[in-house]
C-alpha cells in the first residue's frame, strides 16, 4: 500500500478507531481515554496533512490517490483531491485543537465516554465526507454524521436537550431521505456518479433527461441545504445550540454545517458542472444564498443569547460559500472555498469563547457581558479578533474571502447585487458583533470582575484558553498569509481555476 493510500485510510479510519477505543475504555478511566483521544486526533491531523501533500504533488499532473472497495454497482471510494483535502485539513486539524478544549470543558460532565465516542465518529464522518470519491460514499458518511450528531445534541438529557435533538432530526432525517432518493435516481440515469473537477455528468444528459436532472437537483439541494442551514431549512441550527460548547464549536460551526455546503460544492461543481448552468439551476441557488446571508444577519441582530447570535451568524456566513459556488466564476468559487477554511477558524474561536465564558463566569447572554474584557482579557481578545475577521476587516482571514467573492461576482457578471449583499452583510455583521465588543471592553464591569482574573490563576482552565488563542491566531495567519502558495486562499484559487474549465 502506498503512503498516500495509507494516509487516506488513516485519516478516515482513525477517528472511528478512536471512537471504538473510547467506548471500550468506558466512563471511569479519564486519563487513558483522554490520551487515546489526543493521540488519535494528532494522528488524524498528520494524516490529513499527508493527504494534502499528496494532492499538492499531483495537482495538475496525474490522477489523485484513491482506494475503493466494491458495493453494488458503485462501491466505496476515497480520494485525496484538492477540494476534498481543504475540508479534510480544516476538520482534522481543528479536531486536535477541539479535543484539548473539550477535555477541559467536559472535565466535570457526566457520560464523557459517550460524548467523546460520538464526537470522534462525527469527525471521522466529516473527514470521510471530505475525501469521498463518489456520491454513494459521500452519502453514507453524510448520514453517519447525521446520526452521530444526535446523541451529542441531546447529550445532557434534559427535556430542552431532547427537544433540540428532536428538532434536529425532524429536519435532518427527511433531508437524508430526499438526498438518498436523489442520489439513487442520479446513479440510475447516469451510472455510478464519481466526483471530478468540472463536472462528471455526461453533458448529453442535459438534453435527454432535463426534467429528471432538475428534480434530482432540487432533492439534492434540499438534502444538503438542511446541513448547510439554507433558508428556509435552517431552523434546527439555533435549536441545536443546547449542545455542549465543543459540539457547537467543531460540529455546528465546522464539521456538520460545512459538510452541507461542501456537498453543495461537490454536486454543483463536480457532478453537475456545466449542466447546472445549461439548465439554469445556479441562479436560484445564488439567490437563495444571497437571501439567507441577509436573513441570517438580521436575525442575529435580535438575539440576546450569545450562542444563538453566533448560530444565526453561522447561517449567514455559510451562505457565502454557497453563493461563491453558485456564482461559478473561478474567483467566486475560490472565495467560497477559502471562506470554508477562514470562517471555520474564526467561528470556532467564537464558540470556544462562548463555552469558556459560560464555564468561567456563567454568562450566557450578551447583556451579561458588561466589562467581561477585564475579567477574561485573553479570551475576549481572541473573540474580538475573530469578530473583526468575520466583519471583513483586513488583514484577518474574512477579508480575503469576501474580496474574492466580490471580484468573482464581477467576473460572473452578477456584480451589482452580490456586492450589495456583501456590503449590507458586512454592515450587519458589524452591527451584531460590535455591541458585544463594546460591552466587553468599554462598559463598566461588575464589581468582582473589575480586578481582572483571580490572582494565582489564569482567566480559566488553560486547556480551554490556549485552544482559543490558537484558533484566533490561525484566523489571523490565514488572512495575513493569504498570498502564500500553501495558504487556503491560494489553494482555493487554483481549485477555482480547474472547476470551471468551460
Amino acid at each position: 500500500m502506498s503512503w498516500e493510500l495509507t494516509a487516506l485510510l488513516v485519516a478516515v479510519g482513525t477517528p472511528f478507531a478512536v471512537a471504538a477505543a473510547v467506548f471500550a475504555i468506558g466512563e471511569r478511566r479519564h486519563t487513558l481515554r483522554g490520551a487515546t483521544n489526543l493521540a488519535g486526533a494528532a494522528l488524524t491531523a498528520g494524516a490529513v496533512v499527508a493527504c494534502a501533500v499528496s494532492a499538492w504533488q499531483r495537482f495538475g499532473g496525474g490522477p489523485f490517490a484513491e482506494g475503493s472497495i466494491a458495493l453494488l454497482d458503485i462501491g466505496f471510494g476515497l480520494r485525496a483531491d484538492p477540494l476534498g483535502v481543504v475540508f479534510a485539513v480544516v476538520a482534522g486539524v481543528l479536531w486536535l485543537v477541539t479535543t484539548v478544549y473539550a477535555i477541559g470543558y467536559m472535565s466535570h460532565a457526566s457520560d464523557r465516554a459517550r460524548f467523546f465516542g460520538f464526537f470522534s465518529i462525527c469527525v471521522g464522518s466529516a473527514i470521510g465526507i471530505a475525501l469521498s470519491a463518489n456520491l454513494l460514499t459521500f452519502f453514507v458518511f453524510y448520514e453517519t454524521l447525521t446520526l452521530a450528531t444526535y446523541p451529542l445534541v441531546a447529550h445532557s438529557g434534559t427535556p430542552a436537550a431532547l427537544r433540540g435533538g428532536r428538532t434536529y432530526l425532524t429536519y435532518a432525517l427527511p433531508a437524508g431521505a430526499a438526498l438518498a432518493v436523489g442520489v439513487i435516481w442520479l446513479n440510475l440515469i447516469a451510472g455510478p456518479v464519481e466526483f471530478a473537477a468540472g463536472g462528471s455528468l455526461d453533458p448529453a444528459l442535459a438534453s435527454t433527461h432535463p426534467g429528471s436532472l432538475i428534480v434530482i437537483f432540487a432533492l439534492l439541494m434540499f438534502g444538503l441545504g438542511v446541513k448547510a442551514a439554507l433558508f428556509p431549512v435552517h431552523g434546527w441550527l439555533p435549536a441545536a445550540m443546547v449542545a455542549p460548547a465543543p459540539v457547537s464549536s467543531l460540529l455546528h460551526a465546522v464539521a456538520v454545517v460545512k459538510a452541507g455546503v461542501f456537498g453543495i460544492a461537490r454536486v454543483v461543481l463536480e457532478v453537475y458542472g456545466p449542466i447546472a448552468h445549461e439548465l439554469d439551476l445556479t441562479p436560484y441557488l445564488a439567490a437563495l444564498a444571497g437571501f439567507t446571508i441577509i436573513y441570517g444577519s438580521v436575525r442575529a441582530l435580535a438575539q440576546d443569547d450569545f450562542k444563538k447570535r453566533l448560530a444565526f451568524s453561522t447561517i449567514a456566513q455559510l451562505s457565502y460559500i454557497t453563493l461563491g459556488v453558485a456564482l461559478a466564476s473561478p474567483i467566486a468559487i475560490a472565495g467560497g472555498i477559502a471562506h470554508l477554511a477562514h470562517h471555520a477558524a474564526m467561528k470556532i474561536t467564537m464558540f470556544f469563547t462562548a463555552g469558556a465564558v459560560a464555564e468561567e463566569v456563567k454568562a450566557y447572554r450578551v447583556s451579561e457581558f458588561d466589562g467581561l474584557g477585564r475579567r477574561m482579557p485573553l479570551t475576549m481578545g481572541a473573540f474580538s479578533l475573530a469578530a473583526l475577521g468575520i466583519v471583513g476587516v483586513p488583514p484577518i482571514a474574512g477579508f480575503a474571502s469576501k474580496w474574492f467573492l466580490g471580484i468573482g461576482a464581477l467576473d460572473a457578471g452578477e456584480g451589482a447585487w452580490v456586492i450589495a449583499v456583501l456590503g449590507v452583510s458586512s454592515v450587519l455583521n458589524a452591527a451584531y458583533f460590535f455591541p458585544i465588543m463594546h460591552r466587553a471592553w468599554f462598559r463598566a464591569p461588575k464589581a468582582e470582575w473589575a480586578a481582572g482574573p483571580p490572582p494565582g490563576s489564569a482567566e480559566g482552565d488553560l486547556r480551554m484558553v490556549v485552544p482559543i488563542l490558537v484558533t484566533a491566531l490561525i484566523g489571523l495567519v490565514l488572512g495575513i498569509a493569504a498570498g502564500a502558495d500553501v495558504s487556503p486562499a491560494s489553494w482555493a484559487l487554483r481549485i477555482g481555476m480547474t472547476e470551471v474549465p468551460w
Partner: protein
Amino acid sequence: MAEWVTTHLPALVILVPLTAAPLAFLLGGTLARPIALLSALLSQPLALALAFTVSAEGGVRYEIGGWGGPLGIDLVADGLAATLILVATVVGLGVTVYAWGYFADRERYRYFWPLWLFLWASLYALFLSGDLFNLYVCLELVSMAAVALVGLSLRRDALLAAMRYMLAAILGSLFYLLGVALVYAAFGSIDIATVREAVRADVTGQAAFALMTVGLMLKTALFPLHFWLPPAHSNAPSPVSAVLSALVVKGSFYILVRMWVDVADPSFVPGSAALLGVLGASAIVWGSVQAMRQERLKMLVAYSTVAQIGYLFLLFPLVAGGGAAAADAWVGGMFHAASHALAKAAMFLAAGTVLARFGHDRIAGLGGLSRRAPVTAMAFALAGVTMMGLPPSGGFVAKWQMIRAALESGAWWWAVVVVAGGLLAAVYIFRVVALFLGREGAEGEDADVDAGRSPATMEWATLALALAALALGVLGQPLVELIGVGAPALVAGVGP
C-alpha cells in the same frame, strides 16, 4: 474426510442440529447447553462452506436416498437458500451464546435447548428443501418448535399467545397442504424442479397457488393476517422472540418467494403481485404506527417486525416486470431479509436484557438506559439504524436497491413507500433512543430496581449481532453476489 464432507454438505448442515436436538433432550439439563453450543459452532464452517460451494458451482443439489426428484426428495441450495442459511447460522450462534446466560435456571428451562435445536434444524431443512410436501413437514416442524418455545415461560400471557400462534400456524399449514394437493393434481409432481417445468396457468394451478399463498401469508404474518404475531413475539422469552422475528417468519416467506419468483412468476395469477405489494405497504404503515403507540419495548419491537415484513412483500410487484429492476429488487429484498434478521434479533435480545435486569420493559421506565446499560443501549440504537434503513447498514443497502428498482421500473410509488417507511421507523426508534439518552427515573419507582449486571456474554452477543447488521452495509458485497448466484430467471437480469 474433507471430500466426504463436501459431498454431503447440504445434508450435514441439517444433520448437525438435528442430531444435537434429541441428544440435548436425552442428556438433559447440564449437558444440553454444551451440546447446543457445540452444534452452533459446528454449523458455522458448514454454512460457510455451503455458501462457498454454491458460489463456486452456481448451486448444489443433493439426492436423499439416492433416488433423485421427483421420486425422491432433493436438497437444493442456490444463492437464496445459502444466504438465508448463512443468516440463520450467524443469528443462531448469537442467540445460543445469549441464551447460555439468559436461561440460568437450568431445570425450569431444560426443554429450551432441544426445542431450539429442533427449530434450528428445521429452518435449515426448510431452506434446503426441494420438495413442496417436504416443505409442509418442515413448516410444521418450525411451527411446533416455535409455539412450544413461545409458551416456555408458562406465564399466562405467553400461553395465550402460544395458543393463538398455534391455531394460526396449523390453519396456515392446512391451507398450504391443500395447495400442495392441488399442485400434485394439476402438475403431477411435488418436486419443485419438476413442477417448475410443468407449471401452467389453469384454474387448478391458480387455485393451488392462491391457497398456498394464503397459508403462507398467515404464517409470515402479513398484514392483515398479522394478529397473532405481536403477542407471540413479545411474550416469548427474549432469545425466542429474537429467533421468531429474525428467522421463523422468513421461513414461510422463503417458500412464497420460491413459488412466485422461482416456480412461477407473478403473472401466473394476474393482480397477485400488486395485491401482495399493497398489503406489504399497508403492513409498513400499520406496523409502524402501532409501534409508535406501544408502551412496552417488546411490543414495540414486535410491531416493528410487522412493519419490516411489509418491505419483504414489496419484492413481488418490483420483480414482476423482470429485467434490471427485478434483479435490483431481488438483491434488495433478500438483503433486507438478511439485515433485518440480524438487527431484529439484536433488538429483541437487548429488550431481553432490559427485562432481565429491571423486571419490566415499560418504555417510560427506561430513561437513562445508556448510562445504566451502555452496551445494550448501544446495540439497540445500532440495530435501529438498520431498521430505519440509514447508512452505513445492511438496511440501507436493501432500501437503496428497492428504491432503485422502483424508479427503474417507473413504479415510483413503491419508492415513496420505502422512504416513508424509513421515516416512520425513525419516529419509533428515536422515541426509545431519546429516552435512553435522557434522565433516569422518569417513572420513579422502577428506576431504582436493578437486578445488577447481566452476564457480559448476553450484552456482547447482542452488540455483535447489531454490528453485523451494520457491517453488511459496508462489507456486504460478497452477500450481494451470493444472493445473485443461480437466481431464478425472472430476476437474473442485468444485475449489479
